[in-house]
Structure formats: C-alpha cells, structure tokens
C-alpha cells in the first residue's frame, strides 16, 4: 500500500468529501492561501475557491457559531480550530450550542458539522499551545469525539465524521502530522465508534490514544523481548466508545493499562478504568494502571516538557509495575 503523511491524509479526506458533496465547506483561521498552520488544507483553496475554503477572522466563537448556523440550514461545515487550546475561546458555542441544539429542539435540528483541531505537546510550544483537552468534550453529551493515531485512521475517520449527522470533535496531533503511514488509494470510510486492535497480545491490555498509540506499540515491541506480550488497542473514537473490543481484551489478558497524553486526573482514562473495574471485575489480576501526563501545565523547556509528557519508557515502566504486583 502507498504511504502518505498524516497531514496529507487529512487533505485527501477533505478533498474527496468536498468533491463528493457540495454542501461540505471549510472555515478557519489561515486555512486558505496559507493552507493551515499545520498545512492540512494545502491546495484546497485553488481547487474549491474562496467560497468553500473560507479564511475567517480570529474569532473562534464566531467560527463555531457560524458553522453551526450553516449546518442548521443544511450545510456540512468543517470548522478548524488552529489549536485545541483555542477551543476555550469558543466554549459556549461548542458546549451550549453545538452539543445541545438537537436535544433541546426535540430532535428537529440538523447539526452535521465537524470541528477539526489539533493538540498535544512535543514542540516546546508551552502552556497555551500544547494541551490535551479531549476529556472536556467527551464529557459533554451531544458531541462525538474522534482522535486518530495514524494516517489511515485520520483519513477514514474524517470522511466518516463529515458524513455523520452529529457534531464530531476531531482531534489531530501536532507531532503526528509528519508521520507517514499506509493509506489505501481506494476510498475507505472508517466507522465512528469502532476500536482497532493495533497489536495482539496475551499478558496485558494497553488502551492508548493519539500519540500514545505509537509509543505503546514501541513499548510492546521492547517488552516482547522480555517475554511480555502486550495487546495494544486504539479506541480511535473516545465517544461513542467501542467498549466490547476493550472489555474482550481485558477479559483475555486480565490486566489493563490506559495511557494518554492528557493529565491523569479526571482524564478519559478514568472512564475506561471505571468501566473495566465494573464490567471486567472478575477477570482483573492486577489493579488498573494509568500512564498519563504529570499534573501540570505544559512547560516550555524541552527538558521539562519531555519529563511531563509520558513516553515509551513510562509505558514500559507501567507495564513492568503491573506484572510485579502479581
């Protein structure tokens, strides 16, 4: 299979969906001539014109609100928030409007829109440009939350998100944009709500999101040399959640480690831990472990940043700790 960059996979998904459906359009800051701060919309202005590839003022609340308004009357907007950190500026529209209107209006509201954004640390961008805020959005009924970890997932899931009739909060990772991965040439729509077992194993289940998937796979490879067999599951969508794939794995391995780049407390991992503690209680051979960022804003210093953000070695240490407790 051909290999392309994660950011190119995003462009392809947008391109194909815009070609397929005239109601799909893009809006966001610096997405037109500039092709986006992370070059995820390059070439689309030239192809679809300024009406459908709309540069907006720096008005995040306005971006999400206009996306919603246009969806209500039948468009399928894909709004870009340059950094997930800036979602904080648009929170009313995301949480009180986008997520709520279908329900509040008794089901009679068209809210087919995608909010694309990117998060994560690793580039010394400091506390206001490196957060992992996915748990905020998973917490809000009415939003679907997608977090692809590979180019293939990014493309297939973005296509599904654009076709979805519900608002989808689509979180990319700034360090993954330049990672290359196999993506089929032919059309592939990856359904929302389906996890993927990225690696099979028998001793322990690692549930990882976004950038932690690659780090977990690398950890699993190293641990294999020590005779430890890890299964690595990427939920790909945080809500709706493919609980069965995760629970089946935990029932098989008896051990669960959850890892994400967001801080631990009230993180998405807590939800998975609670679910497994209830629904796989009889199968657990060790306390559930979480490997997450340290509970601090993201520091600028590269030394401190890499200390705070979990890496492959933290996953390995977490796994070893769990095996020792038996």
């Amino acid at each position, binding site marked *: 299979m051909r290999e392309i960059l994660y950011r190119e996979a995003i462009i392809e998904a947008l391109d194909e969906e815009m070609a397929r459906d005239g109601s799909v359009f893009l809006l966001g*800051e*610096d997405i*037109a*001539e*500039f*092709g986006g*701060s992370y070059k995820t919309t390059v070439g689309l202005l030239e192809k679809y014109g300024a009406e459908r590839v709309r*540069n*907006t*003022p*720096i*008005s*995040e*609340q*306005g971006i999400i609100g206009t996306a919603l308004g246009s969806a209500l009357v039948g468009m399928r907007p894909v709004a870009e928030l340059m950094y997930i*950190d*800036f979602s*904080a*500026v648009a929170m009313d529209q995301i949480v009180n409007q986008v997520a709520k209107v279908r329900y509040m209006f008794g089901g009679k509201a068209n809210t087919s829109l995608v909010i694309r954004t990117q998060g994560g640390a690793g*580039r*010394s*961008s*400091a*506390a*206001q*440009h490196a957060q992992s805020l996915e748990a905020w959005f998973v917490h809000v009924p009415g939003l679907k939350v997608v977090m692809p970890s590979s180019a293939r997932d990014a493309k297939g899931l973005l296509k599904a998100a654009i076709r979805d009739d519900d608002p989808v909060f689509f979180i990319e990772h700034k360090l993954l944009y330049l990672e290359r991965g196999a993506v089929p040439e032919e059309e592939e729509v990856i359904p929302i709500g389906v996890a993927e077992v990225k690696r099979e194993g028998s001793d322990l289940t690692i549930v990882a999101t976004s950038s932690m998937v690659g780090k977990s796979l690398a950890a699993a490879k190293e641990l294999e040399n020590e005779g430890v067999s890890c299964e690595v599951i990427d939920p790909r969508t945080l809500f709706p959640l493919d609980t069965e794939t995760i629970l089946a794995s935990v029932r098989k391995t008896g051990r669960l480690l959850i890892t994400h780049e967001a801080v631990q407390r009230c993180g998405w991992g807590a939800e998975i831990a609670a679910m497994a503690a209830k629904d796989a209680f009889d199968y657990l051979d060790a306390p559930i472990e979480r490997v997450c960022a*340290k*509970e*601090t*804003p993201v*520091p*600028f*210093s*590269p*030394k*401190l940043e890499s*200390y*705070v953000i979990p890496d492959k070695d933290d996953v390995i240490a977490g796994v070893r700790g769990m095996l020792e407790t038996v």
Partner: protein
Amino acid sequence: MIRLTKVKALWIYETMVRIRRFEERSIELFQAGELPGFLHAYIGEEAVAAGVCAHLTPKDQITSTHRGHGHMIAKGLQYEGMFAELYARATGYCKGKGGSMHIADQDLGALGANGIVGGGIPIAAGAALGLRFKGEKHVAVSFFGDGASNEGAFHEGINIAATWKLPAVFVCENNGFAESTPRATHQAVQDIADRAKAYGMPGIVVDGMDPQAVYEVAGEAIARARKGRGPTLIEAKTMRFLGHYVGDPGTAYGHDKEVGKWLKRDPIITFAEVLVKKKWLNKSNIDAIHANVNNEMEEAIEFARKSPEPELGDAMTDIYASV
C-alpha cells in the same frame, strides 16, 4: 500637547535599537538551532512599543501578545532574563517554563506576553480597575494586533473599560496582517480606531512608524487615563518586516509584496535622521549606542548559555501558591 524632550527622544531611539538587535540576534540563534519553540519577531514595529512605554513607570502595567519581546524590552525587562528564557534556562524571567510567548515580570509591571490572541485585553482592563481600587494614579496599557480586534475579548474588554472609565489605554498595532490573513479580508472597517466610537471612548489613528507621533498620541491618552477620564483606543498603523513567525517567508499571502514600501520607513533609520537633524545625536553617539547594546547583548547571551536548565522537579512547582 505632549512635547518630545531630548531625554525621551534618546530613550526611545535606544529602546528601538535594543528591541531590533534583540530580535535580530534571537533569529540568528533560533536558526542556528540554539533556541527551542518558535519566535514571532517584532522587527518594524519598534516605534510603537518605545513611543508608548516612554510614558510608563514600573508601576504602570502592560499586557502583550505572542509578538511580545518588544513590549517587554520597552517596559524595562533586561536582556539576561529574556535570553535565558528563550534558552529555557532556570535563570529566565519565567524559569524556562514560559518561553518566547510568555515572558513576563510582575515586578516591572509586565503582565505577560500572551499566546492567546486577545487574551491580554480584558486583563489590562482588570489591571486598570485594580490600580484604581488601590487609589494609585497608574495606568494599564494593552498591546494587541489588528487580528485580535476581531476577538470577543477585545470587544468585551474595551466595553468594560469604557463603561467603568478605567485608567487604561488600548494600543492596536495594525500591521496589516493577522498571521496570513490580510486585514481587509478579516474586517470591513478601514480604521480599527473607528470601533472605539461604538464603546464610547476616543479612537485615534497614529502613524506607527513615527516614534514621535506615537509618543505624542500615547502621552495624551495616558494623561487622560491618569486623570480618571477613561480609556482610549489607539490604532498604530505599522508593519512587521518579517513573516508571521521566524521561518515564514510571507510569500504565500502577499506580505513580501507589501513590505517593500514600509522598509523605507524603518523607524530606526528615520528617527536617527530626525535626531541628527535636531543635533540631539551624531554619528559617533549612534555608533556608541549600537556598540553598547551589542556588548550588553553578547554578555546576556553568554549568561543564558552558561545558565543551568531547570531541574526536573521544577516542572511540578509554581502550579499553585499552596496545595
């Protein structure tokens, strides 16, 4: 009418040089791979920070932006702590935790560069409120860009300041671009200063390439604020000479074509000419100023390079005052 004195004029000139040289060296160091993160250079806009801050004391407060080095230098922050911060060293103004976009020093009334566009505007209103509560005649000044004037934070912040007649001055540095977006495509008004009218405060356009004009207009606004007559919105028309961030050539969105005519109005060159004509400066003074600035800077860079990195444990401090 506020008149520019020789002392202030020389201070403004030297401050502009300090900013320019800081930015030029930072870019070199960044391109040499010595500095992590990213940089937004203030080159071209020096007259605004210098002309405004010439009126401020350390008790006056400023808020700034992602393009904040110039404001910080004009507010009195020193090269050593600034370079150390860019180098992510423990001796930096923010102990290496903030970096280029978050340099701050409360002791000098610098309430921070800011990574969130528009974020500093209501904070300046609040600082002005706090200063008035304390019965002090100090003012708060907020610097921000044309792009920021489209954020809700701008409209909410200046409306509060006007309604409460706060001792604040809002300085919009209209450099014609918000990242890659030309100003005319992100707002329908010609002059951002017009927006002041909607909130019931004076709005004034000034040539941001002319330090004397900035000094005079800012002086009126700051005096007005100190007297308790409320805020002013100043729009300084200016231009960043470089791309949005270091590494952006500015070619994708027409900046490279626009910038040429502004380069001819480089405030450091034109203001030196003005001062030489007034006989307030001569060639050898100018050379001495540059030499002093350069010496001080190289020492500061050495200081930063030799400074220790933060300890790992420092990552977990300063999150709360106490827990």
